[in-house]
């Protein structure tokens, strides 16, 4: 019942915060968010699962009971953790706590509603990563949208209304596509009697669908695979479905950006791994080349777009598109290091991009501009914040002994030797070139903003950031370095959960 406790604490905390007075809402929300963070860290140490949640693995903290009987189909409350989902749950809870602390400075209106919504998002994200029944999972998946829509729409920047509705419409339409495809698949699978993902995965791997409404079994599987891939691709996002992301990021308040880049994007890659890459090994093989092409294009094109930006937040936003391209490449490689590295990169990118958005936010709090052209020599005035920004940028570039290095290395290593993906060496080399562009745009941006003589036309008094702005960044930096030095902290449990997937098609 640990997962239920985790969800309940967070939801009740959200309600309490919602009705608390504005004055104390920020501190209260931070205090409340420490409970799920501590709980999830305890679960991390007490983790006793093994194998993959969908493929007969031993689930940790599993609980299940029947909920609704719908004709021949049972909907049950089924939650549990395996080596893939546990690191993401910890990422969610820790990042939420830090994001809450980092919003004490910038958020100065309707605080109780703001922090209530942040905690509400956290609860739903935990739900997404723990639910193993499609129905329950989809509820959490969709319920993330409403609070994020409001966070962007109410507390965002000047074009917030446009960005919020764009975010909502893009991701919701994608969800509906995916949803329709999956329900069709369930009915196409003759002998399935529930929406539980393990049961559906087993049925998919043992024979696949019988066909539905005139479509044959393998044709149905292909259609569903493509529709679900497109549905999740918007959420990830990959080129060409990425255009909602920069708008949403630039207009979102800092903590919303942190959660958006840190965790919400991982919903897309997590779902790809759980659904497409676990249940459809044959289709993965058949569509490996187009998927790898999309991944490489996202890497290169996203990085090129970042190169062309002058808004620091846009730079970080586009670089997320690039980083998510690596994750897709790792998944499609279908090797232990590829898929494991992709999962590791999800966590690592969540930490690093969260750190970058926080650092940019702290600079913005002081300067009230994010334009690269408006400022230079910020290191002179804000040495600590800028130092962390530089450290984060190096993490992004994949500096050894930081988590980004291991994630990208594992992906490249796994992708290069992929037996499933034809021309894997070519794809990997092209994607590696992305690293060069990343280093290029980050160094170029840093050179212009933080180094050189101090210059900033502003009426604001620019000085050192307060401790509660800097502290969460130090924590994140610590985790990033810890995972870089000792990736096996989570990589072991990830590979343990990834291996069963590869036994069905890839080379383990």
């Amino acid at each position, binding site marked *: 019942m640990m997962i239920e406790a985790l969800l309940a604490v967070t939801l009740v905390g959200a309600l309490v915060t919602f009705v608390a007075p504005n004055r104390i809402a920020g501190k209260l929300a931070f205090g409340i968010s420490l409970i799920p963070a501590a709980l999830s860290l305890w679960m991390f140490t007490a983790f006793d699962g093994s194998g993959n949640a969908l493929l007969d693995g031993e689930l940790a903290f599993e609980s299940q009971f029947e*909920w*609704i*009987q*719908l*004709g021949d*189909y049972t909907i049950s409350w089924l939650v549990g953790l395996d080596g893939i989902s546990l690191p993401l749950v910890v990422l969610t809870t820790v990042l939420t706590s830090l994001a809450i602390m980092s919003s004490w400075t910038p958020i100065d209106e309707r605080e109780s*509603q703001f922090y209530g919504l942040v905690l509400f998002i956290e609860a739903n994200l935990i739900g997404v990563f723990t639910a193993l029944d499609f*129905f329950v999972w*989809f*509820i*959490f998946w*969709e*319920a993330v*949208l*409403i609070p994020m*829509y*409001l966070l962007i*729409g*109410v507390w965002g920047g000047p074009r*917030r*209304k446009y960005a*919020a*509705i764009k975010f*909502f*419409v893009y991701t*919701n*339409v994608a969800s*509906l*596509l995916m*949803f*329709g495809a999956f*329900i*069709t698949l369930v*009915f196409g699978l003759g002998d399935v009697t529930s929406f539980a993902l393990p049961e559906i995965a087993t049925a998919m791997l043992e024979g696949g669908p019988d066909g*539905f*409404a*005139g479509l044959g079994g393998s044709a149905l599987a292909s259609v569903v695979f493509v529709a679900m891939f497109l549905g999740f691709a918007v959420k990830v996002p990959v080129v060409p479905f990425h255009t909602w992301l920069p708008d949403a990021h630039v207009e979102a308040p800092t903590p919303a950006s942190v959660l958006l880049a840190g965790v919400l994007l991982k919903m897309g890659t997590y779902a790809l791994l759980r659904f497409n890459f676990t249940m459809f090994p044959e289709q993965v093989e058949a569509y490996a080349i187009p998927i790898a092409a999309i991944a490489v294009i996202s890497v290169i094109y996203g990085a090129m777009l970042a190169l062309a930006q002058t808004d620091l937040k846009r730079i970080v936003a586009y670089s997320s598109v690039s980083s998510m391209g690596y994750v897709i490449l790792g998944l499609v490689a279908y090797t232990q290091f590829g898929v494991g590295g992709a999962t590791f990169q999800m966590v690592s990118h969540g930490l690093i991009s969260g750190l970058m958005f926080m650092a940019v936010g702290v600079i913005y709090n002081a300067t009230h501009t994010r334009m690269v052209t408006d400022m230079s020599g910020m290191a002179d005035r804000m040495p600590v914040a800028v130092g962390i920004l530089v450290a984060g940028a190096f993490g992004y570039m994949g500096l050894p002994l930081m988590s980004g290095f291991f994630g990208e290395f594992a992906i490249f290593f796994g992708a290069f030797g992929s037996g499933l993906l034809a021309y894997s060496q070519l794809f990997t080399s092209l994607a590696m070139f992305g690293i060069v562009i990343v280093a290029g745009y980050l160094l170029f941006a840093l050179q212009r903003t933080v180094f050189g003589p101090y210059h900033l036309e502003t009426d604001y008094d620019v000085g050192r950031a307060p401790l509660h702005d800097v502290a969460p960044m130090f924590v994140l930096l610590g985790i990033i370095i810890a995972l870089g030095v000792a990736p096996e902290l989570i990589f072991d449990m990830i590979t343990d959960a990834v291996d069963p997937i590869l036994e069905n098609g890839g080379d383990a």
Partner: protein
Amino acid sequence: MAVFELPDWAALAPALILVATALALFVIDSINPHTKNRSLLAGTTAVGSLAALGVAVWFMVAGVGTPTAAGGRGVVELFGGQLVVDQMALFFMTVVSVVTALVAVASYDYMGDHAYQAEYYSLMMLAATGMATMAAANSLVTIFIALELASLPSYALVSILKDNRGSVEGGLKYFLIGALSSAIFVYGISLVYGATGHLQLEAIADNLQGAGEYGGLLGLGILMLIGGFAFKTASVPFHFWAPDAYEGAPAPVAAFLSSASKAAGFVIAFRVFTTAFPLEPTTAVIGVDWTLAFIILAIVTMTLGNFAAATQDNVKRMLAYSSIGHAGYALIGLAGLSADGGEIVMGAAMMHLLVYGFMNTGAFLFVALAEYWGVGRTFEDYNGLSNQAPVACFALGIFMFSLAGIPPLGGFWSKYFLFTGAIQAATANSAMLIVAAALVVNSAISLYYYARLVKAVWIEDPVSGRDTLAQPTGLYAAIIFAAVLTVVALPVFGPIADAALEAATVAIS
């Protein structure tokens, strides 16, 4: 073993309580014709409809109307099968009485300075009686009588603001189209009677074979019956009264009509088509599968309603068109029937009408609140209301996202089941795939205009110079209650789904 057995007619208690309340209101009015004692009148109405609600729920739980085979006390047939109390009847009586209760409480404030208090509430109770009777009617004659009993007070309710042009115009349009569709409906009844020689629904089904040579006549009669249902449920092609009537009517009345009256229209459609015209024998006689008509109507209705709603500037008209769109969703319940099943779609449509009763009533009551405040009618007029009335606006957000079908709110559940049912029905009839696709596309479109209202109240900057907004107790209570019901649908959806699916299974078999 019960100490004493209630007589059979006691099974009609929910409808009887509603009519008794209407009579009680007449008595109060005749004792003091000019009474302005709003608390007494609205209170009587609310207590009466809550009592009907309680009895209906109690009956359902106690197994009244549940077939004995399923461990219940058996379906109650009254007056030679003219009325029947089964699970479906009780389910829809629940919907009608809960909406009536919400509307009655909200009317306490909204109709506060109106001259004809007792008339208003008694008309509402008479209409509710008609709707509850529609739920139980099991013969074309009783259906028609119940339909008229529900319709005539409704015409008067829409135009009760006698000095308001819009109200009178809406009432007149509603009446004219209602009269036309009643005429068509009665003509349809006469054709069905001519072909089969019966009016009672089971008897019609038993005599379908005998109508062999009058297949075309019967088909025409069925088509005309569909016209009558379309009017009552505000579906294409008799939908166009709805926007004008809802816009002109007092907002609580619009809430009442768009939720309760629509649900009642659907229950007679469900009952007539599942009981009197079972799919296979009917198709054999008339040569056409009648689900085809509902497939077309469902797609056209939901698409038209949603596209029209997306282009509105007036919030009440938007809700009126959205109500047409939701009629399209509920029509899937009939479109998805097939010879070997369909209880999921029909059960889902019933759930949708129940949840719709909460969320749509709540949304219209928020409009009632806005009219009470006098803030105006367009989206722009609602800008920034959340600064002054966060609680009501929070409830509005719940209604809107629920109408759009976003989890975890009630509207998601019923839409989810509708979708699942439609996909499952596609195994028997692949045209249902188009219906399922239309449902998804329309849900996505609907998000645009529902989110627009949320955006107006929560995100846009407030209109400057707005006066302080009062907090009328009755309206607030009704809105909050509806919001709670919409949210609480999540944990209690198991029993709701069970009740609806059981009722649908019994109706189909």
